[in-house]
């Protein structure tokens, strides 16, 4: 039976908790209720209150307590109810968790799960993509899976990682994506992008929900005789520039796609990395398809206009192809 993206995360967490008694969960409404999105439904019944800790509405304390627990060798997995609330625990993440190892050699092996992304009519505070706040913070790792396979493999790697990992799970994919997953155990390494479709004419780089948009666009382009290569970043920090650059070396044209707003987005970092490394390979400008620089609006026609989609990718891809 195919597994949803959401169930994949669930399974990954479950397996890690079975494997390692030091893994535990904390967050708001994750126990009895099973989490706002039901990712942890059934966990408290199986693992007990000791390992599934319902907290007060205190994002700062959730992150801080996770840091403290990690000092004693535990592996906390904290949930932000929505990624949008991560800004309430911000200082603990960017100043405490991120800098301990560098400053005084203390490892902080913890995971922060954060359901992010739009397309669910959540409005300005239930739809954000906060990843770039953290991609600019040395000491953190940032993961954003697009597939059920990667979601499971990456959450498992995140739990085992000895550095703080932010795990952005895209709400819009929770129940939309279904895949057959391997029966045997596997992990997916943090820090490795993946070519999810091969092509020689043009590279499309994306992550999270936009990987599916990119793939759909690539299908359409194929019908038009254009072979697009699609790179799924999977991890945003440490950023696997190599895989992206390798692809650009081959295709010489690159389209960067993200659901996040444009200014200061991941596409900027990629554009800089690409032109620094393989400028001479480029046969056209590095092009971005992103959300515009506004908050995420609520009303369907506005949100639709806001989000990047297949049409917008196609338009830019065709333009770049002709360039």
């Amino acid at each position, binding site marked *: 039976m195919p597994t949803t993206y959401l169930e994949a995360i669930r399974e990954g967490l479950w397996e890690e908790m079975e494997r390692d008694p030091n893994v535990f969960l904390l967050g708001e409404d994750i126990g009895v209720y099973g989490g706002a999105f039901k990712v942890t439904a059934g966990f408290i019944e199986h693992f007990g209150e000791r390992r599934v800790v319902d907290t007060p509405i205190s994002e700062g304390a959730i992150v801080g307590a996770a840091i403290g627990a990690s000092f004693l060798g535990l592996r906390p997995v904290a949930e932000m109810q929505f990624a949008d609330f991560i800004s309430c625990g911000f200082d603990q993440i960017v100043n405490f968790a991120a800098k301990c190892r560098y400053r005084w050699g203390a490892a902080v092996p913890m995971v922060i799960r954060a359901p992010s992304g739009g397309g669910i*009519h959540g409005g300005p505070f239930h739809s954000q993509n906060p990843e770039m706040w953290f991609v600019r913070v040395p000491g953190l790792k940032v993961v954003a899976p697009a597939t059920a396979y990667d979601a499971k493999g990456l959450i498992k790697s995140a739990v085992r990682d000895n550095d703080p990992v932010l795990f952005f799970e895209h709400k819009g994919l929770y129940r939309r994506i279904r895949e057959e997953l391997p029966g045997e155990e596997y992990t997916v390494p943090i820090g490795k992008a993946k070519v999810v479709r091969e092509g020689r004419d043009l590279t499309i780089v994306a992550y999270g929900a936009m990987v599916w948009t990119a793939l759909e666009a690539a299908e359409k382009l194929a019908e038009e005789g254009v072979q697009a290569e699609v790179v799924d970043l999977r991890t945003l920090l440490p950023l696997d520039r190599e895989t992206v650059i390798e692809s650009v070396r081959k295709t010489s044209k690159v389209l960067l796609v993200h659901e996040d707003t444009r200014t200061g987005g991941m596409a900027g970092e990629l554009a800089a990395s690409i032109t620094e490394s393989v400028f001479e390979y480029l046969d056209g400008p590095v092009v971005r398809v992103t959300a515009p620089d506004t908050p995420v609006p*609520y009303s369907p026609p506005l949100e639709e206009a806001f989000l990047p989609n297949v049409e917008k990718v196609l338009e830019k891809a065709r333009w770049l192809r002709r360039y």
Partner: protein
Amino acid sequence: MSAAPVSTLPSTSASGEPAELAHKCLYYMTLMREVEDRIERKLYRQGKIVGGVYVGRGQEAIPVGTALLAEPDDVLLPSHRDMAVMFIRGMPLGRVFAQYMGRADGPTRGREGNMHMGDLKLNLVSIISALAATVPVAAGVALAMRYLGKPGVAFSYFGDGATSRGDWHEGVNFATVQKLPVLFICNNNQYAYSTPLSAQMACANVADRGPAYSMPAEIVDGNDVLAVHAATRRALEQVRAGGGPYLLECKTFRMTGHSAHDAAHYVPKELFEEWERMDPIARLRSKMLANGWADEAGLERVRAGILREIDEAVEWADRSPYPDPATLLDDVYEQS
């Protein structure tokens, strides 16, 4: 589009202050109940509301009992279960429905859903999702009132769970240090989403937090609108006299799930039954009848009037267009 329907309080034949007040309270409580019922049980299920819906069923006495005492210069910062505050301040019904339905004539022109709305012309500040974020903002509002020599009070509304947030502490602390005119109003409905009070705080009452800020704190039956009103009046007297912030904890119960998609299986059935018997609207109604302040027929007429108002407002809102995607980029900054 023509002006949005405004809710109009029918004049009552009731004489004497208490009766008149009771009529007002009943009107606004019923209005809130019926508007939210329409939203949650009709429009949401009809798919006319695409985002989340959070209602204050059973808690209507709190926004009504408090906001009816607001003066024009007061600034109100309602939380997500305080819909009546909007109406009492003069936000047209139609605009509220338009908001929930994502239409251009909502106060956020489709940019926001549900109770995330405000209007500075009505001295109404919109919440953001992050709980308790409006608490320090209320302190700032009050600071500005004093700065400008205005007589107002900031009404800061929040739930029990919101008091766990750092912003709550910082805001209350700042307001008390500065002795600012803020009335803190807690709807203690005993749950924060699925989390019961005991997993939210070690103290028994939110009011137990008052002394940490040398702030007077009072507990009131939040399902008795006249008690809420009376306590608010007393509290406001102190606040307006320069006594600094005052915390009013209104004990109540959330008679729904956290939101429209939550069946609240985690709440013991008996609790719902127990609190059903304390429904603030039914209680006030009985009292009014018992005291001879009203008769059944009169009250039914008022309710019928409310339902008509709502029908009209929903129709109005439904005629409101969706926002034009061409406006997407507007108003991120002041347009020059």
